[in-house]
C-alpha cells in the first residue's frame, strides 16, 4: 500500500468516526460546563469513557489521527517516490507513539472508574503518560531525520546537482 492510500484510509476512518459520534446518543456534560462558584473556569463531571461505544470511538479517533500523521511523514520522506532509510525511524516512532497513547487511554479508563487515582511525577497516571510519553516519543523520528539526513533527505552532491541543473535550465 502506498503512503498516500494510507493517508486517505485514515481520513475516511476519521470521517466515519465523526458520523458515528453524531449518531450515538451523547454523553451529557462531557465537554465542560461553568464552575458553580468561579466565573471563567470550566469543570467536567463526565467523560465519553463512561459509555462503551463512545469510549472505543474515541480511542480509534486518536489512532486514526496518529496513523494519518505517520503516513504523511512517511510520504514526505520518500525520494523519487521510493522509501528511504528514514522510514524505519518513522515507523518505530509511530509504533512507540501508538503504545504510549494506548497506555494513556487505558489508564484513563481506570482513572475514571476508580475512586482515587495514583499520581506519578506530581500528576495523575494518565496525565503522566501524556506528558512523559506522548510529548517526547516523537523525538525518535527527529533523531532519525538528523541521523539519516544525508542519505534520506538531501546530500551535498544532490544540492550540487540541483544547482547545475538550474544553471543548465537558465542557459536553455
Amino acid at each position, binding site marked *: 500500500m502506498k503512503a*498516500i492510500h494510507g*493517508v486517505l484510509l485514515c*481520513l*475516511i476512518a476519521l*470521517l466515519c468516526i*465523526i458520523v458515528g*459520534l*453524531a449518531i450515538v446518543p*451523547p454523553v451529557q456534560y462531557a*465537554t*465542560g460546563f461553568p*464552575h458553580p462558584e*468561579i466565573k*471563567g*473556569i*470550566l*469543570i*467536567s*463531571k*463526565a*467523560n*465519553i469513557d463512561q459509555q462503551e461505544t463512545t469510549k472505543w470511538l*474515541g480511542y480509534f*479517533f*486518536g489512532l486514526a*489521527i496518529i496513523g494519518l*500523521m505517520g503516513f*504523511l*511523514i512517511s*510520504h*514526505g520522506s*520518500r525520494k523519487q*517516490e521510493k522509501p528511504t532509510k*528514514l522510514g524505519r525511524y518513522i515507523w518505530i516512532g509511530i509504533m512507540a507513539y501508538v503504545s504510549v497513547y494506548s497506555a*494513556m487511554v487505558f489508564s484513563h479508563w481506570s*482513572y475514571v472508574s476508580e475512586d482515587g*487515582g495514583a*499520581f506519578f*511525577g*506530581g*500528576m*495523575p497516571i*494518565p*496525565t503522566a*503518560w*501524556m*506528558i512523559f510519553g*506522548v510529548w517526547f516519543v516523537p523525538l525518535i*523520528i*527527529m533523531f532519525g*531525520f*538528523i541521523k539519516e*539526513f544525508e542519505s534520506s*533527505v*538531501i546530500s551535498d552532491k544532490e*544540492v550540487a546537482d*540541483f544547482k547545475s*541543473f*538550474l544553471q543548465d*535550465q537558465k542557459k536553455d
Partner: protein
Amino acid sequence: MEANRNLIIFICVIVYMLLCIGVGIWALRRTKSTHDFFMAGKSLGVWVSAFAVFSTTLSGFGFVGGPGLVYSMGMSSFWMVVVAIMGFNVSFSLLGKRLRLFAELGNYVSLPDVVYKRYGNNTTRLLMALAIVIGVVGYLATQVLAMAIVLRDILNAGDYFGQVSLVTAMIISCSILIFYSVTGGIIASVYTDMVQGAIMIVAAVLVFITVIFTFDNGLMEMNQIIYQDDRQAIGPWGTLGMIGSLSWLLLFGLGGAGQPHVITKLMMNKRISDAKKILPVSVMGYVFSALLWIGIGLCMRALVLSGMHEPLTSPDQAASQFLQYYAHPLLAGIVFAGLFAAIMSTAEAFLSIGTAAIMHDIPQGIGVKVSGELSVARITTVVLTILAAVFAVNSGSLIAMIGAMSWGIFAAAVVPVVTLGFNWKRATPLAANVAIVVSLVIHLVIKAMSWNLPYRIDAGAFTLILSLTIFISMSLLSAPPRLDKEVEYVMDM
C-alpha cells in the same frame, strides 16, 4: 526591589519598545527590495531561522491565550503543546527540504508565488492568497489584542497615566508595531525573533521554577488542588473531553505544516541543507518555551480554586496576573518584554504574508501589475494593522479562540495544497482549488452559524479532514497533471 515592581516592569517594556524601534531603523537600511522586505533575501543562518520558526509558532496566542485556556479548561489545551514535536516532524519531513528547493526556482516573495510555480494555475494562486488574507486578519487580531491587554495591565498596575482603556493601549501598541513593520519588514521580524526566542527559553524555565515554588509542596500540591475540585480537569483530556482534545492534536500536529507565517521561514534560510539543524533547535526552543504556557495556566487555576487569588475577570489575564503578583520583579519585567517581542515579531510575520497577498498575489492572480511595490507594501501594512485592531476590539472572544480559528483556516486551506501537494505529483490544480474553497466556505459557515460538532470537535480540524479527503480523492480520480520540468526535478529529490 518589590516596592518598585511595577516601575521595573514598566522600564523593561519601554526599553524593549525602544529596541524595536532601533531594530526597525537598522533593518530599514538592509531592506532594498520587495524580496528583502518579504523573504529576507534568503540569507538567514541556522539559529536565526530556527528561533524564527519556533517563536513565530508560539507568539501571543501561546503566551497570553495558552495560559488562559489552561486556566479555563484544565489540561485540554496541553494537546496544542504536546503535539509540537510530532508537528515539527510533519512540517520538516514534508516541507523542510521541499519548500527551500522550490524557493530556488525563482525570485519569489510569497507562498502563493510558489503555489503558482507548482500548479501553474492563477486561480490556485488567487485562492491561496484569499485564504491567507482571511486567516491573517483573525490571527493578527489575536496579536494586537494580546499586546493591548498586557500593555493595559502594566500601565494600570503602575497608575502612571490614570486608568488606561483597552482601546488606548491598542492604539499605542499598534503605532509601535506599524513603525517597526513598515520600516523593517521581515528582516526586523526575524532578528527580533532571535533575541525574543533566547529570552523566552530562559524566562520560561525561570517562570516554571517560580510556579513550582508558589506552593509549599510544588507541582503535587498544585495538581491536588485542581484534582479535588474536578478530577477531569487534571486528567489528560481536561474539561473539553477526549474528542475535542484529540481534534486539537490533529489541528496543531498536522496544521502546523499549514501555517504560512511559519512555513515561509523555511524558504528564507541560506543553505538548503540547514533543515537538519533547524529542526532540533526549533523543537528544543518550543519545548522549553511551552513551560510558560502550561505552568502559569495550571498555577493560576490552583491559586484561584484554593482562594489564594481573586478569580480573574478574563482567563486571558492569567499570564499577566501571575507575572505581576508571583514572579520576581526583574523576571516579570524580562518576561513582559519577551512577551511583547513574541507578539510583535509574530504580528510582523502576519503583516508580511498578508501584505504580500494583498498587494502582490491577488493582483497577480487577476492579472494586474502593481508598480512601486515596496511603497505599496508599506501602506498596505498600515491598513492591515488597523483592520485587525478593529476586528480585535469587536470580536469579543478569547485570544486563544480567535487564534485557534485562524490556525484552522490556514491548516485546512494550506495543508492539502502545499504540504501534501508539494510532495505528490498526482495533485491537480482543480483539486487544489476545490479544497481551498471547500475549506474556507465550510469553516466560515460553521463559525458564522455557531454550529457545534459532536463533542466539540474543532471546526478547523473537521474542515482539514474534509479538505484533505476531497483533495486526494479528486486528484486520484483525475488524469495525472503534466508538470513543469523544474517542478518535476524538485519533487523527485
